[in-house]
């Protein structure tokens, strides 16, 4: 084998020298491109994207913030709760997000000198076991420009395969290559990521309520739920982060259409376990998913088994406001 190396040593050397020079030129160019993209993404946020809208807040004070997945984004009307509690609030809910993503966003939000007095966290079977239920539980493409931040990197390490993190570290432009649909050069040259939705998060304070009143249901199958360690871990990190920042914590689980719940095996036990853990930490917990609860019984209040529509959201927001009113700092 070694002998073979010597036979073609000159040709190989020439080739290796040329390909090395060429590779260095490519790597340098990609590094320049990466810096250009990163600066651009930082300065041209797409405020129709919920996560960008959240991260665009700086130096603001909020009396309360709701955090969770679509069941917060679509089911909590901040305007209703503000009116009832006479305090300022924000909806930090993100569609299809796991607790890692919630943690990352909360951390970034607080690092931008925003202050929250009360953090209200929604837990449900989906965000306690996001990998099983959610199609894309961590929306990495929304945060890849933040990878220099240590907490963001930590969250990425827990949610991405190692080889990807290795590549993103040593060949950072690969992150923009992978998500070229989100970060297209055309959009950059044209001057920004235009809004394609009519969402006005400024007016709704981060909420996005379903207007349709048609109840969509599917054939139900039994699902056996267990905790996902990653989700459990990041739920605890949210609790720790809030406690360190002296933020008052309140937990709840929102309504689920009552005929859907019997198919969710082990769910009640999981919620019970969470309740006990929170009790040990002196954190209040409200369970609105009890099948006997009036909020859970009328299809007119739901857009599907798991999400309420505009009519249900109005009712739930009032009930939540009433429940938390005395506990708010």
């Amino acid at each position, binding site marked *: 084998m070694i002998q073979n190396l010597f036979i073609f040593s000159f040709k190989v050397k020439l080739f290796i020298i040329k390909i090395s020079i060429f590779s260095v030129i490519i790597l340098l160019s990609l590094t320049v491109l990466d810096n250009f993209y990163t600066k651009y993404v930082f300065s041209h946020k797409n405020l129709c994207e919920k996560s960008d809208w959240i991260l665009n807040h700086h130096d603001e004070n909020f009396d309360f913030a709701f955090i969770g997945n679509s069941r917060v984004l679509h089911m909590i009307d901040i305007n209703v709760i503000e009116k009832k509690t006479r305090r300022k609030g924000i909806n930090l809910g993100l569609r299809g997000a796991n607790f890692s993503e919630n943690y990352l966003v909360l951390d970034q939000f607080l690092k931008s000198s925003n202050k929250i007095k009360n953090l209200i966290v929604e837990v449900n079977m989906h965000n306690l076991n996001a990998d099983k239920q959610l199609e894309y539980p961590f929306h990495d493409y929304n945060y890849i420009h933040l990878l220099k931040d240590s907490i963001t990197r930590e969250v990425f390490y827990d949610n991405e395969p190692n080889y990807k993190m290795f590549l993103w570290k040593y060949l950072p432009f690969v992150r923009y290559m992978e998500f070229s649909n989100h970060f297209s050069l*055309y959009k950059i040259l044209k001057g920004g990521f235009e809004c394609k939705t009519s969402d006005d998060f400024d007016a709704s304070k981060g909420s996005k309520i379903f207007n349709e009143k048609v109840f969509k249901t599917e054939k139900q199958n039994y699902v056996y739920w267990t905790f996902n360690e990653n989700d459990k871990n990041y739920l605890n990190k949210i609790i720790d982060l809030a406690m360190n920042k002296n933020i008052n914590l309140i937990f709840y689980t929102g309504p689920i259409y009552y005929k859907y719940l019997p198919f969710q095996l082990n769910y009640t036990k999981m919620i019970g376990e969470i309740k006990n853990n929170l009790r040990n930490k002196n954190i209040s917990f409200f369970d609105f998913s009890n099948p006997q609860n009036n909020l859970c019984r009328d299809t007119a209040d739901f857009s599907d088994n798991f999400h309420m529509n505009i009519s249900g959201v109005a009712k739930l927001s009032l009930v939540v406001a009433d429940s938390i009113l005395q506990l708010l700092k």
Partner: protein
Amino acid sequence: MLFNSLTFLVFFVVVTGMYFLLPHRYRWFLLLLASCFFYMFFKPVYILILFGTIVIDYYAGIKLEEIQDEKKKKFFLILSLIANIGVLVVFKYFNFINENISQVLVHVGVQNPIPFLKILLPIGLSFHTFQAMSYTIEVYRGNQKAERHFGIYALYVMFYPQLVAGPIERPQNIIHQFYEPKKFEYNNVSAGLKQMLWGFFKKVVIADRLAIGVDEVYNHLDSYTGIALILATVFFALQIYCDFSGYSDIAIGAAKVMGFTLMANFNRPYASRSISEFWTRWHISLSSWFKDYLYIPLGGNRVKVSRLYFNLFIVFMISGLWHGASWTFIIWGALHGIYLIFALITKNIGVRISDFFKKLKLSFLVNAFNIGFVFALITFAWLFFRAKTTHDAFYVVKHLLDIHSINMAKDIYLNNGQDFFVTSIFVIFFMEVVQYININYRNLLFKYPSAIVRWGFCFSLIIMICVFGVYHNDSEFIYFQF
């Protein structure tokens, strides 16, 4: 293993590096091992099927050479062909045939008792089966010596660059190359890598980008009509060309780096001025396979006119069926057969019109018209190839000329998909310019005397692959399914 994956990049560097480090006598083993690994990356168990047919064809080849008796020779040839076609029938066509039997039986009120097979189609089955068949046929005809070295024969069928999507090689072209000691040739390596780069550009920048718009329309056909359908079908014509010729470029380039020469598979097919010319430029390895092993044995051109038309029609219908077990593919093949027959019938009229314009020194007009017309015919046939069902295909045909849909096309291509549309047009234009220069000026952009131009061109390609490439986990090559 997909060519457009990180795994392949590592695999290619390791295998090529080891190939040049190993002494010649061990290289066949390395390539065979690497090819097995490459194939097993998709679904390991299917290697057994491949191995089974390799064993049968290997022994059939030896017997075909040893036996003098014509009847016995024919027996071994048929045995080998049955083994290969049998595998194709079981894995690819059984459920299709069974489904059609069921539909016929339903009409007479009988339930089909034959169960459907719950199996996946082994990747690239039609390609390596046809390559194996060309070996036994060539040995039978006496054009190729039977290969005695089992490893080399297995490598002929399994050589990883062309294992899953061709080019479908002939034994005369490739087997002897495995015996030749290959040295590290700078020119080969450089040319091979450049061809691979060009293939990657076509695949990830053009084909996968066009696929976004094409899939959107063809997966939600009920929502689209008219211009949107026309644009999606034209884009599919370009997508399938870039996807498949991109794969072929990567395959030919990867083999070239190691010093192997594989046959060319594409030659700017959409610049064809007739359908018959198209088939000498598109998937050349398959069309020449059908010509050598089916069309000519059926009598070729040296038969009565009616028989000639029949031969053409049958060959193209089988060619359609080769692509997939579905009526859409059969219709696609049949359409090409009909186009060719029609071209033969109207040949004299065409020649007269052409001569008329030549006299007026306006031949370029005829050429331009012919290229456009042939492209339109081919693109029309592609819609059957792309549609999931015949129902979908006929929906497209029915709504293709609905002119009330300009706003819908604007919505998907200019309002919501402006980014997609503009970038697609830009990269297609870039590809056409590069192809034109490279074909008319002997690969000028890759071989320009000035290193700055050569390097600059390769640099631009890599940057375009990085910036404009589309990277999905599911962006397989279209022809893998065959």
